[in-house]
């Protein structure tokens, strides 16, 4: 064996070791990365039509508060959460449902019948009967749920 042969054998083994080691590192790093960031990419909330109640309970021209319970799954834990929505109708046929969560910082708004406005007690946010901002800090109108009526039962689309 000449000096050159020994050198190339040595550097070949060195390169091979680094290559195999690097390959194993990548093979391990990719699943590890997927494992770590996986749940943050998964959509945990699925869209669901949730029954609010009978349409006959909605007063014409006066937002009525409906409460319902939805199941939330986070990780391996299933929990129940109460959601509330103000349902509004002008004619008893077309319904719209507004979230009662203030778009400012998430406090619950309530309907003040005397002034016909939604009022948020946290920072004095005020919305009109359609959920549009009248005054105060809220950056956008109240969120709306999609609604559907089936056999005089009112449903809203939750999640998504």
């Amino acid at each position: 064996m000449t000096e050159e042969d020994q050198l190339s054998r040595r550097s070949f083994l060195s390169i091979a070791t680094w290559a195999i080691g690097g390959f194993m590192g990548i093979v391990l790093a990719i699943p590890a990365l997927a494992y770590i960031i996986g749940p943050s990419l998964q959509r945990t909330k699925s869209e669901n039509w949730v029954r609010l109640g009978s349409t006959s309970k909605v007063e014409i021209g006066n937002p009525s508060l409906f409460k319902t319970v939805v199941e939330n799954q986070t990780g391996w834990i299933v929990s129940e959460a109460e959601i509330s929505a103000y349902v509004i109708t002008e004619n008893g046929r077309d319904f719209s449902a507004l979230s009662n969560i203030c778009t400012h910082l998430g406090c619950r708004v309530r309907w003040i019948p005397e002034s016909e406005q939604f009022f948020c007690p946290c920072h004095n946010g005020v919305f009109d009967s359609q959920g549009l901002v009248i005054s105060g800090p809220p950056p956008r109108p109240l969120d709306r749920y999609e609604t559907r009526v089936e056999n005089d039962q009112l449903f809203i689309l939750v999640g998504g």
Partner: protein
Amino acid sequence: MAVQVGNWLDERLGWRKVWEAIFLRKVPKVNWLYTLGSATLFVGLLQIFTGILLTIYYVPTPDHAYDSVQYITTQVPAGWLIRGLHHWGASAMVVLAVLHMIRVILYGAYKFPREVTWFSGVFLLLIVLGFGFTGYLLPWDQKSYWATTVGTRIAGVAPVVGESILRIMRGGEDLSAITLARFFGTHVWVLPTALILLVALHIYLVIRIGISAVPKREE
């Protein structure tokens, strides 16, 4: 550029000497059985890596342990792989460590001046078995529950102190949340600390003393 950075660092850290001592040391002509120790070390590093990943989702309480393990296995991307590697790696650790020990025994590599290497190796094997025993309970399914019931019961039959050992291991009369929590704590804090310290000593001695040659037929 890379050479310059290497030189700059070497002037300050002296890392080339360390590198040479670890990877470029002289070894006698040996056979493939001499790779068993490195193989054990490699699987051990893999166990540390996958074990750390598992703790990202695993929760060691009776009401969450089983569900979080199921969540890892069925919901988290590559969770089945990470858990599978950790699961099979555990068995591989024991098998490789024992094979490594058998090689050392048969080649007489435990003799002077390598006795301390041997002692530390024996404790390392016990630590590996401890890892296996404590890790087995963590999925908190029927198999792990009853295996730990039996395993702690076996410790309980030791004369005089058996009953105390049993109670200390379980943290009370029966297997409970306390048992699960202390097995988890032992598995992820106590044993890894002991393992890393002893592995450092073990490898330091291997490098300092050098590995033994294959014994000759007549000497």
